[in-house]
């Protein structure tokens, strides 16, 4: 028996409501896999860490690892922190807000095994992939941003800004160390650098269910930051 182990890193901030649900879903959909979940909570004021510890009592500390930092730091550093605890050969990163469904992890694993990919990324923009809960304006912004990025960077991957991915552990370590951007651009830089380093990337279509109805996170400032990051990658890679 030499089944690879998968470490699922869940960076959280104020996810005390979603965390029990996402953990339950991971346990359900990762049946028969060798895995652990590493919760990296940045001292959320809503008590996410306490919730994580409750869940650890229920599911055991083999399955659930709880860690975190004193205060909220960047996503990249949350991954670095999580990797330190990862005992797996592969690392899965995903959001804890239920927009990424754990049922896709098994598909990532299968796809990775087929071609020994260094990275498998979920994609909302290809095949049966898609998004629930976005209005036409949000879809148009997303598709336009994606199109412009494809034309300028030709990254060979259809979804650059998604954050539901499986990495070989050493590949993730190397990428996180070489990426300096923040937010959406960080995910984009990870893929562009992966391409640059010659890592192989597979794609699996995913359905992204956006449950934060109403309040759109995509304001003018986000768009400006995105364009700035895009130009940075355009000029440097």
């Amino acid at each position, binding site marked *: 028996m030499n089944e690879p182990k998968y470490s699922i890193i869940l960076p959280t901030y104020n996810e005390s409501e979603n965390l029990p649900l996402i953990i339950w879903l991971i346990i359900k959909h990762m049946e028969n896999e060798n895995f652990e979940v590493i919760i990296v909570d940045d001292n959320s004021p809503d008590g996410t860490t306490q919730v994580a510890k409750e869940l650890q009592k229920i599911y055991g500390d083999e399955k659930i690892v709880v860690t975190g930092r004193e205060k909220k730091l960047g996503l990249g550093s949350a991954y670095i922190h999580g990797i330190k605890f990862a005992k797996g050969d592969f690392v899965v990163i995903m959001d804890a807000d239920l927009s990424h469904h754990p049922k896709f992890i098994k598909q990532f694993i299968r796809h990775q095994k087929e071609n020994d990919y260094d990275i498998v990324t979920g994609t909302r923009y290809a095949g049966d992939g898609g*998004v629930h809960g976005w209005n036409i304006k949000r879809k148009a912004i997303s598709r336009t941003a994606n199109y412009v990025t494809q034309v300028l960077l030709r990254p060979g991957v259809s979804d650059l800004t998604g954050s539901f991915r499986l990495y070989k552990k050493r590949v993730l370590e190397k990428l996180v160390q070489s990426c300096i951007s923040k937010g959406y651009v960080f995910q984009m830089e990870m893929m562009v650098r992966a391409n640059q380093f010659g890592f192989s990337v597979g794609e699996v279509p995913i359905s992204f269910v956006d449950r934060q109805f109403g309040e759109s996170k995509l304001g003018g400032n986000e768009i400006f930051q995105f364009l700035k990051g895009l130009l940075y990658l355009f000029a440097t890679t």
Partner: protein
Amino acid sequence: MTKLAQWLFGLTLFLSIWMAILKDLSPIKVTNDNIFWIYLIPVAFVAIFGVVSLLIIIYRVATFNNCDDAAKELTKEINQAKKDLEVKGFKFK
């Protein structure tokens, strides 16, 4: 070569050829009849690129999957999760 350098290289190449035609250095001879069209070449390229891009984006927005089934399935699973977790002794706030 960075992506920026690739674009600048392509742009320079294109402009050189276009200028060569315009200055009558190519086999295509400039006449009063065709000079207007030669001037129009770069504009036509930009316009075609713009229109094709717009059509591609419109098509992709129109065919962007809504994943209604995935949302329904998730709601169902959330309810199961809440029940099951309470049985296991987890207290929801």
